[in-house]
């Protein structure tokens, strides 16, 4: 006489309800993944809008020889780095030895933009810490900086032999941040060698 409770397979609406229960969890998980992805990202690391375009026109004195005027044309001929630096910038001090290293050991061509600085202290800095630069443009008012879209020091631009901006690094150049730039630099160099 007793009725066995009949177990019926889940019907359509019931599974849909169960899915609905799981849905908020999935959404929360997706949101968590998205936020986790953002952890450790540098909010200052912005894609430069000048990547792919020519180095903007500028004219300025060099740091060491005030009578020498340099322009964007002086950067051309070989791929190179353009490094924005200043004596008031602690990160610039931190990366300076590394710049010396890649300039002397790897033969990387580096140009400097001495940004919002005083000539005497900047010259003193190069005497004390060494000079990795082919030359540094003296830019006390940040005029060259604005043309380049510089936000702050240090910033390092990679340009090709024709002066096209290939990549930009915001922040310290070191063992960790250099390799991706180096690969591009070497590729550019190989391209120049092949053309010759």
């Amino acid at each position, binding site marked *: *006489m007793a009725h066995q409770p009949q177990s019926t397979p889940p019907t359509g609406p019931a599974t849909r309800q169960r899915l609905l229960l799981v849905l908020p969890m999935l959404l929360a998980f997706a949101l968590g993944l998205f936020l986790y992805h953002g952890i450790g990202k540098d909010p200052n690391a912005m894609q430069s809008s000048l990547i792919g375009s020519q180095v903007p026109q500028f004219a300025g004195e060099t740091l060491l020889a005030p009578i020498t005027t340099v322009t964007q044309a002086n950067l051309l001929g070989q791929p190179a780095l353009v490094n924005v630096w200043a004596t008031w910038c602690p990160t610039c001090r931190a990366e300076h030895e590394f710049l010396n290293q890649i300039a002397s050991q790897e033969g990387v061509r580096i140009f400097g933009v001495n940004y919002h600085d005083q000539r005497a202290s900047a010259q003193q800095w190069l005497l004390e810490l060494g000079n990795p630069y082919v030359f540094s443009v003296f830019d006390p008012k940040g005029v060259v900086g604005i043309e380049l*879209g510089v936000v702050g020091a240090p910033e390092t631009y990679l340009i090709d032999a024709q002066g096209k901006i290939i990549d930009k690094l915001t922040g310290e150049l070191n063992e960790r941040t250099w390799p991706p730039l180096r690969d591009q630099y070497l590729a550019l160099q190989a391209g120049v060698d092949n053309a010759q």
Partner: protein
Amino acid sequence: MRNSMCFGLVKALMLMLLLASSMSFASIETYQFAQPEMAQRFNDLTTVLRCPKCQNQNLADSDSIIAKDLRAQVHNLLGQGQTNDQITDFMVQRYGDFILYDPPFKRSTLVMWLAPIGLLLIGLSVLWFLGRKPAAQAAMLTPDEQQQVNNLLDSDQQLDIHHD
């Protein structure tokens, strides 16, 4: 006599302090404009342009070197007779859409513009599902299930009668 001199000195010192404090609150630099209308445009532009370094401030609010430079640049471009659009373009060309507090709608800003609408839609659909629940349950019984329920109810009634 000596007392009054002392008092005068204190007054002078206090005045100096007052001036010093008001100076530190004043804007960092002053600009001259050919027309008063330009000053208004300068204020408008430095309010809608974002400081690229200190990311939660506009150009007008920020003390950073780059904000100061860009304020000077805005002033300079205004003096050259450029329109607001030309000045904005100048900034975007160098610093990207990032520098705009009101960035244009395009592929790279798609997520930013559409995310709030998407979240709103998710919220609304959750509300809709919650509100729909009772109706859904009522409709969940198929004719077969209804028959089962009826059978169960019937058998219970029979049992009750039996016990009585």
